[in-house]
Each structure stands twice: as structure tokens, then as C-alpha cells.
């Protein structure tokens, strides 16, 4: 399972590195969304508002949906799907590999967008840095959930709106926990409790993915 996971993750990351879609399309989109959020707050409120963490996670959600959809599109063409199916890969390994690649991509995006939130939303640098571990855990949980819901929404072949509709109820608790822990890091409060919620969610989605990914593939 681990061998297949590493193989799939390496393949997905190589494809992303080569296609440069993340670098030239998704990242600029995320940056523009952050700029728009900064404009929406206005110069008087940026930095003083408690909206920074929520806006950061809103942008991360939009970015995550693009990245998750792209991760499924890679496998989506009928020929590729059929050929890869005949390799008989362990579905749990495929799920873990997909989730791992998504996690690396979202972590990269997250770090860049955190820096963007310091610049554009004027979140405090020290608070933002102390929020980094919780952001990484939340994004890891989002990756595991995203790999699962990406497969559920039709593996890149379903309607484009299906992924957001299906995944939002699953993502919402993660986003809330992430936003709360980010806010706690900035303004003080119960940082660890929200951190643990993200960690439990990560473990739950990894377990669900390992158990269900094969069933979703078959369906």
C-alpha cells in the first residue's frame, strides 16, 4: 500500500510540476482572490478585523477545489482510466498517494497564501507563523477529504459543480476548525483544541479513504 501510495504521489507531483498549472493558474487565482478579499475589507479594517483567518481559509477552499479537481482530471480520460485499472493497483494505496500529492500541493499554496495574507490582509506576522502548524494539519485533512470526495464526484468526469456541492459539508467543519485555530494564534484563545479537531478529522478521512476508495472507484 505504501509503495503504491509513493508511486502515485510521485507521478501526480511530477505531472503537476511539468504542466505548471499550479504555478501559472491556481496560484495567481489564489493571489487575486486574496487581493479581492483585502479590497473588500478596505484599508481601515485590514489588520484590525478578525476576518483575516476566515478569508484565508475561504481562498484556500477555492484553491483546494481547483487542485482536487485537477488531481482527478489527470486520471479522467477513458483510455487512461481503463489502462491504469488493468494495472490492478491497490485502491488504498492510490487514495493515499492522491491525498499525499494533494497535501504537498496545498501546503505549498498554503504557505504562499499565508505570506499573502500577511501582506494583503495584514495579519500579524508572529501570529501567522504560530498558526502555521495548525494550517498544515487542516490542509492535510482537507487533502484526505478532497481525495475521497474527488473520487465520489466522478473522478474528473462528473459535472464541474458536483465536487463543491458534495464536498462542502465535509470541508466546512475543517474550515471552521482551521479558522478558529488561526484566530486563536492571532488573537489568543483555545489554539490546541481546534488543532486536535483537525488532527482527528485527518485520521478519520484517511481511514475512510483507505476503506472506501476502492468502492468509489468501482462505482
Amino acid at each position: 500500500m505504501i509503495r503504491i501510495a509513493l508511486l502515485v504521489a510521485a507521478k501526480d507531483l511530477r505531472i503537476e510540476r511539468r504542466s505548471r498549472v499550479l504555478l501559472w493558474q491556481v496560484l495567481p487565482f489564489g493571489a487575486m482572490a486574496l487581493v479581492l478579499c483585502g479590497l473588500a475589507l478596505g484599508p481601515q479594517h485590514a489588520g484590525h478585523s478578525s476576518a483575516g483567518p476566515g478569508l484565508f481559509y475561504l481562498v484556500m477552499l477555492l484553491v483546494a477545489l481547483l487542485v482536487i479537481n485537477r488531481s482527478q482530471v489527470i486520471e479522467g480520460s477513458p483510455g487512461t482510466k481503463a489502462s491504469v485499472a488493468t494495472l490492478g493497483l491497490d485502491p488504498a494505496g492510490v487514495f493515499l498517494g492522491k491525498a499525499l500529492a494533494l497535501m504537498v500541493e496545498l501546503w505549498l499554496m498554503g504557505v504562499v497564501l499565508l505570506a499573502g495574507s500577511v501582506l494583503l490582509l495584514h495579519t500579524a506576522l508572529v501570529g501567522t507563523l504560530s498558526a502555521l502548524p495548525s494550517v498544515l494539519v487542516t490542509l492535510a485533512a482537507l487533502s484526505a477529504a478532497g481525495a475521497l470526495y474527488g473520487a465520489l464526484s466522478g473522478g474528473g468526469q462528473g459535472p464541474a459543480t458536483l465536487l463543491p456541492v458534495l464536498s462542502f459539508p465535509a470541508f466546512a467543519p475543517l474550515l471552521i476548525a482551521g479558522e478558529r485555530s488561526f484566530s486563536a494564534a492571532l488573537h489568543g484563545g483555545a489554539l490546541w483544541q481546534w488543532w486536535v479537531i483537525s488532527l482527528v478529522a485527518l485520521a478519520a478521512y484517511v481511514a475512510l479513504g483507505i476503506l472506501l476508495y476502492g468502492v468509489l472507484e468501482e462505482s
Partner: protein
Amino acid sequence: MGSSSPVVVLRDAVVLVSGFPLLSGVNLELAAGSLSVVTGANGAGKTSLLRLLGGLAALSSGAGVVSGIDLRGGDLRELRRRVGWLGHEGSFYDDLSAYENLAFAAKALERPLSEIPTVLERVGLASRASTIARQLSAGQRRRLGLAWLLLRRPELWLLDEPYASLDEEGRTFFDQLIGDVIRGGATVVLSAHDPLRSSSLGPRTLTLAGGLVVEDRS
């Protein structure tokens, strides 16, 4: 032809998708080590038949056994491991090079990477090993698909319109390779619009219409 023990047995096989019958009751036996060409108009059910044989489409009713695995209730994942699929849409990752695609398959199957240069040489793509798959011509992409199958060495080769986009040289090469594969003991089922193609290999020709085998010529 190889031995006469059937590698494929279908009895009144029906495949439904959203209630629409893609196959309407196919009866078929294919001997191991044989070549069969499935012909028919667009929508006749050629691809659906191949997908059923590969465990890639579900049998809705009827019965079927492929490579000893029951299509209803059997381990379809194990069946898929035993078949090789070459689709007319391309059969690999477009953003990986020819070598990287084969390396992915080799690692997945725990085969040595040292086999890849030999396989690329065999299909005439040795000089294109580092070319990204999407930059290959249609004929080269088909050869890469064949390389993928040669690396895997499946028992049952399912080739969906393999002659499409191939020039005369490519078709001749393809015929030679299929001949070698059959002599090696594998079973080949391919779909084609032209039933006369591969006649030098003595294929059995199955003509499909409306999801049924309407003609069976050996």
C-alpha cells in the same frame, strides 16, 4: 491458433448503462491463443464487448467467465490484472514522457526498469523515450500503448480500434507484433472497422450489430 480451451465464455451477456443495452445477449467462446476481430458499425457494441471482457464494464445479466474468473461475483480486480487494454483515446498519462509512463507501469507491477529500453526498441520508440506523451504523433502514441502492454505481458489483449490513425507501415508493424503475441500464447481480441485487416493472421471475425453477434466467421 493455440489450444482450444476457451479463455472467454459468454452466455446471453447483457450490459446495460442507464437502462440502455450496450450488449443485448452475446453468446461467445474464444479459445486461448487465438486472434478475434470484432467488427461492426459505430454503436454496435464493439468497445462494450471489449470492456466487458476486461472487467471494465459490469455484466447486467447472463453469464460470463474470462480467464477463469466469473464476471458475476468473481474478483474483477484480479481479472483486470490479467488483461491488457489499448484504447483508441490513448492509454497513458499525457504529461509524462514515454519512459516515465512505462516506468510507472513497471514500478506498479514490480518489474525491473531495465526492461523498458528493450520494449521501447521493440516498438520503435527508443529515440522518443524522453518525449512527453502528448507530443507524440497518433501512431507513436499507439506504439507507446503497445509498449505498455509488452511490458505487462497480459494473458488477454483487448485492443480497441488499434489500426485507427496508423499508416501502412504502422499497420504492418502492428500485424507483426500481434502475430508474435499470439505465437507467444496470449489471446488477442481487437475491434476494427475493416474486417479484412489482419487476414494474414487468420483471425476469427465477429460482426456485431445492435449489441448482438450477428455473424461469426473463422
